[in-house]
Each structure stands twice: as C-alpha cells, then as structure tokens.
C-alpha cells in the first residue's frame, strides 16, 4: 500500500497532467463581488449516494457553498445524512440544516427547493422514477440541478424529460447528470484518440458488470414491519417503476461510456436473461442479462450483467477497432486506467498509450465542472445525454424482459408508463405496484408478455 510516488511516476507512460488530488480546485468565480456569491444546496433523497453527492458538492473549492435543506421519505435517512455531513471533518462547517429545513414526505422535495433561491442547486438523488416530478418543480423554481443517474426508467418518462428539458435550456439552468465517467479526464483523452482514428473503425464494444448480489436487486419478502410502498422504496433496485431494476441502475455507466466511445446511440437491441436462484425473493429482476446492441453502421455493443455470487466477476468496458483496441475502463468506475493497443488481445507489449496514474476522481470532477459553469454562467445541460443513456439502457432491459427485438424508434414511442401516479403518492398510501395476496409481484415473462415488461393492473 505504501506508495513511492517518484519511482512509480517514472514508470508511467506519459499523457496529460495527472491530478492526484481529489479536491479539484476550479477557476475562481466571476460573480459580481457586490452579490452574495454563496451557492446554496438542497438534497432531495438522503440515501448513501445522495449523501455522497452532497459531500462531493461541498468539497468543490471555488467559492462559498453550503447545504441548507434535506428531504426524504424516511426520517432515519435524514438523520444519518445530517449526522454524517455535519460531523464531517472537511465539510461540516458548510452544513446549515436546522430542524425546520429537514423535510419528510413525498412532497418534501417542494419544501426543500422552496428553501433555495433561483441559481442555487438542488441534488435529485431519490430513486429515478421520481426524477421527472422533481425536475419539473426545480425548473419552475429556476434552480440549477444535479440529478443522479438513471434519469428515466421507461419510454413515456424519457420523452417527458426531453420535453421538460427544453424549458430548462430556455431558462439557462445548469443541469448535471451523475454519469460521472463522462467527466473522467482519462476517458476524455481516450475518446479524442478513438475519434481521431487511433484504433481505426470501432466495430465492436464489450461491457461487463458481473458481480455477486448487488445493492437491493434481490428483495426478500416484506416481513410486515413496513408498508408495501416503504418496503419497495427501501429496496428500490428490485422494482422497475422505481429504478428500472438492476439493468438501469447497474449497467448504465458501462453502456453509456461504450456508446460515448462509439460516438453514437445504438438503433436496436436483442437480449437474453433469466433467473436461476429465486431464493424466495419477490423483486422483478433477472439475475443475469446479456444484451446485444446494434449501431447504424452494424457495429455491436455486447453487455453482460450478472448478480450471482460465486461466478466470474468482471466490471469493465472495451472497444475493438479495425486497427487496435481500447480498454475504456478497467475495474469499477474509477480509476479507469484507460489504455490503447495495436492488437486485438490487448497484450502488454502492444500497448501504445495509457492514461497516467493516479487519475483524478470523476465523482469530484463532475461537481467541479458544474459549479464552475454556474459561477461563470456558461451553458451547461447534460439532460439529453442522460435521458438517451437511460433510454438505451431501458431498451436493452425491455428486450430481455419481453424476449423481443426492440428498436430505439419503437422504444421511444412505447406507451407503458410504469408509475403514472408517482407524483401523487402519500405517506402510508398504496404503491403504484401492489403485491398479490401472497406478497408476490409480477415478473417479466419473455415471449408470453411481449408488449410490456410485466403485467400490472394498468
């Protein structure tokens, strides 16, 4: 573990400057000195990732920034988030969230955003099913937005988000989407190199996220200690109306970075998948997925996702070109350790380029880039890209769940909205997806249920 930097850096191949620090200092602000240049932040959705995003936000060091409001549907989440952030050695002093600015309930997002002024930032980090609801209000309030990925989980809300976003663009709101790999300096350089032809024509890409059980993808039955709605939200990766399931939540980064390197969105998808180990679980996910995407030029993107313990694990993306290959990301999201090779088997002696290590952390960079754009008032909107990545991912999931070939054109016209009433939920009320009298939920039935991903009452 002990690093001897000089010796290690000496061994690295050259490239762009490596910033070892995680605290990326951006340019200082151009805001008029006469104004209060403090950026206020509200966090809607106090889970682990939302809290992490707030920490990344408060760590941006280019002017005053503070957290002023928290919203969630679970009291415990609000408590633990507040404790974690206010007690944090580096950012604790930037947390100012008294009791009266901690909001509980399905309408808490409104109160939290009401605590901000136009030009402040709201973090949308609830399960993605709620994203369009919260984004609608943020636009109305004239707020800048950081929204976690995925940003949509079905076709109708994808179309809705694109329409909504036009209003945000008109208002010049700065909107970031948590596909942080897009901010990775190594992948950026790799993209430039691929686009300039260093591996020739990109004919095939491969992406893997094969791991053991992941997050709340496998959901045990509700033991009766909470309502079905609460049980589903606690285990949101298990229910398509909330999260788009394991495909949307876990595979989107690798799918997105692969499409980025191809510089195109695929036109269609076919997929296989199934579930071998149910183990009494009641979620709607398969435990393995293999998706084949096809681009307009016939190039393929193969994606393998698995949440089965004890099997081969891989978490990486690769590109194959007519003149060489690229490792887009090596393991997990960071460090990417992007590399280029002149052969197809990526042998060490055929490596022509590697992004120097250590590389800066994209979770910090995505925030530095957003806050920079806000302070310098530059146009900044990642929503269309985020929606397309979400839709393409959902298209692959739908191909697996229905057993059909799905084209992107067809997908975007699809009418199955998983939770049309999601903006009307109430504490203690019913879920848009209720279990049967044995506590079971509808699961995909490829080949039998083909026009939608599962049968529900709607």
């Amino acid at each position, binding site marked *: *573990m*002990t690093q*001897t930097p000089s*010796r290690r850096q000496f061994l690295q191949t050259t490239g762009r400057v490596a910033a070892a620090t*995680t605290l990326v200092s951006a340019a200082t602000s151009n805001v008029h000195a006469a104004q209060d240049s403090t950026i206020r932040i509200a966090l809607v959705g106090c889970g*682990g*990732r939302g*809290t*992490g995003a*707030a*920490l990344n936000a408060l760590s941006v060091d280019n002017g005053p920034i503070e957290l002023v409001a928290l919203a969630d549907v679970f009291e415990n989440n609000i408590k*633990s*988030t507040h404790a*974690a*952030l206010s007690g*944090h050695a580096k950012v604790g002093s930037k947390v100012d969230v008294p009791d009266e600015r901690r909001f509980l309930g399905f309408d808490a997002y409104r109160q939290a955003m009401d605590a901000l002024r136009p030009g402040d930032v709201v973090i949308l980090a609830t399960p993605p099913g709620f994203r369009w609801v919260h984004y609608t209000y943020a636009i109305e309030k004239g707020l800048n937005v950081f929204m976690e990925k995925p940003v949509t989980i079905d076709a109708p809300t994808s179309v809705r988000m694109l329409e909504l976003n036009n209003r945000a663009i008109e208002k010049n709101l700065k909107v970031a989407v948590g596909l942080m790999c897009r901010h990775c300096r190594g992948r950026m350089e790799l993209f430039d190199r691929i686009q300039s032809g260093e591996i020739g024509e990109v004919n095939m890409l491969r992406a893997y*996220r*094969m*791991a*053991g*059980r*992941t*997050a*709340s993808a496998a959901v045990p039955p509700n033991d009766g200690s909470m309502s079905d709605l609460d049980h589903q939200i606690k285990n949101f990766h298990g229910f398509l109306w909330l999260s788009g399931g394991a495909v949307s939540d876990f595979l989107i980064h690798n799918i997105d970075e692969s499409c980025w390197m191809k510089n195109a969105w695929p036109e269609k998808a076919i997929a296989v998948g199934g579930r071998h*180990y149910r*183990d009494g679980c009641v979620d709607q996910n398969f435990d393995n997925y293999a998706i084949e995407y096809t681009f307009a030029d016939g190039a393929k993107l193969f994606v393998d996702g698995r949440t089965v*313990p*004890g099997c*081969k*694990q*891989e*978490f*990486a993306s690769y590109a194959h070109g007519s003149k060489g290959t690229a490792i887009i990301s*090596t*393991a*997990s*999201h*960071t*460090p990417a350790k992007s590399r280029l090779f002149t052969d197809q088997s990526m042998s060490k002696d055929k490596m022509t380029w590697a992004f120097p290590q250590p590389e800066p*952390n994209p*979770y910090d960079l995505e925030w530095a880039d957003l806050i920079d754009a806000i302070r310098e008032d530059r146009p900044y909107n990642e929503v269309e890209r985020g929606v397309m990545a979400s839709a393409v991912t959902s298209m692959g999931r739908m191909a697996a769940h229905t057993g059909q070939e799905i084209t992107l054109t067809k997908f975007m016209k699809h009418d199955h909205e998983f939770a049309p009433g999601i903006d009307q939920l109430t504490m203690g009320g019913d879920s848009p997806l209720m279990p049967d009298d044995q506590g079971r939920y509808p699961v995909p039935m490829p080949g039998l249920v083909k026009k939608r991903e599962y049968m529900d009452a709607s």
Partner: protein
Amino acid sequence: MTLKQLVLSLTIAGVSSSSVVAEKPTTMQPYSDRLEHTDLAIEMVPIPGGSFKMGSPESEADRKDDEGPQAEVTVSPFWIGKFEITWDQYDTWGEQTDQLRRKMMSVDPSERDILVDGISKPTEPYTDMSFGMGKGDFPAICMTQHAARTFCEWLSAKTGHYYRLPTEAEWEYAARAGTTTAYSFGDDPADLDDHAWYFDNSDDTYHEVGEKEPNPWGLYDMHGNVAEWVLDQYDPSAYQSVAGAVDPLSVPKTLYPRIVRGGGWDDDPDMLRSAAREGSSDAWKEQDPQLPKSIWYHTDALGVGFRVVRPFIEPTADERALKWDKCEPKQVDSD
C-alpha cells in the same frame, strides 16, 4: 496449486477437524477445517509457543523507528492459516454461498447454520471488490479490519473452533519462523522473487495464494501478495513497553491507524520485511462513493487481506470480551 502443495494437502486431508485433539502443544497437528455446504477447507499449521525478539535491529537496512527497540516477547501456541484467506472462502461468508447451496439442495438448517445466520454480513458492495484481478483462489482484499474480524466470528460459528486475527506479535513470530534476518530467507531483497509477490514482479496484480516458496514453518505469502491485518492498534512506540510481555496486544481504541503486516503486491521490498509495520488510514476508503462510508470496505486497499489463527488454548468468554475480541469504536452499519 503446485504438486508439492497438492501432496501436502493430500497428506493432511485425512485429518478432519473433529479428530484434532491436542493435549500438549507438542502434539499439535496441521489440520484442514472444512466449510460445510461448500467444497472448501481452511488449512491450518501449528505454531508452537515461544519467545523471540520482536522488531528489527538498528543495523537492518530500511529499518524504521517504529520497529524498535527490539523487545523479547512470548507468544502462546496457536495454529495459523497456511495461506491468506481466499475470495472463495471469504465470499462463503459475505455472499452466503454455503447457505444458498444448502437451500438449493433442500437441506434443513443445522444448529450451526442457525448460529451463522446470526452473524453480521457485509453490505453488498457497489463494485467488484476484486477490481478485475480475479477471485476464486486469489486472496480476498479491500476489507476493513472490522470485516476481517467479523469473518473470524463467522468462521468460529461455522466450524465450532475459535478463530481470530493474529496479534502483531503472533504474526511476526510466525513470519520469522525462527529467523532473525530481514526476511525469513535472509537479508537480501534480491532473493525476493522466489518467495514473494511485490511491486517489481507482480505485474500490477495479486496472485493465487501459495505460488511462491513457503517460509521455514511452511507458511505461504507471509512476505508480499497481500499485506495482512492483525488485531492491533498501530502505535509507533509500542515496543518501548512490551519487553517481557506474554501475548502482547494493543487493543484498538480508534478506527485508524490499525496494522497490516508483510507488504503486498504493490509494495517495495522494504515493506515486505518481517519487522515492517504499516498503519491503515481513511485514505483507504477514498473512492467509496457513499456517505457515511462503508464499515466493511477499504475501496482503495487493493493490497490488503488477512489470514486467521486459532489459539491452542481457547480463551474463555470473559477473556474474549476483555482482550481478544475487544475493539473500539463499535462499528455500526448506517442502515
């Protein structure tokens, strides 16, 4: 697995854990503790108790101040893992693959299955914690000391034998295997290649356990491959007051720093020395995107794992509470 290891494991495979009855340390046998509902076993090597000089002499190359003054200490007899804990062994606890298999085979839970059910499990990781370097017989990595301790708690419930992490003194005693040189094979780092995986020969990755030469007491990868957790809090001045102690242990009182020993695949030769000590830090959780950060994972400690020991004399519940299992602050999952 080398042929030599295979032969070795075959010769002890016949010794099942239940027949390991040791009256005196001199009769301690190597044994293999099988993990029920899996095809795995943990191989244990007896280490007779004794006294040794802990730390390094001032004359040792690359020595650091925290390795002195050398102090004579005594350790009681114990068994220690022949190998670092592998991913397959580790995941049996973390992913409950033993229980999944039991259920798939429609086998009713035994008393022991009910017991292990009560032990904490790590929350599901957000990423492949092997970082693409391989699982199976590769050493488990990236766990916090708390996770390694909890694995031992699970292993004790699972097997009916008391397992824990080694103390720093036990670890060094076993690593030295009677030697007083910088490494258990001598003083020359040039000879490391036959005995250890480290920065210069590891090809930027860990390797399956047991591929290099073992130390004189038959323990593999004590130098290199992955640095190994011990029970102690890291205290650079600990050796000033440890002379003459029997089974010394610095019971942890703070989360950082705690100690790993033996160096790993990404370390240089000086960190692989028998006496070298390294303290953990919160930088080992740098890329964990969650807050609060997980109590189970050191997302950036790709060169940190552990092996287990089993003391010859099993401590009483009181002794465990007051010393061996004692650890502060208490680690609680945020959920």
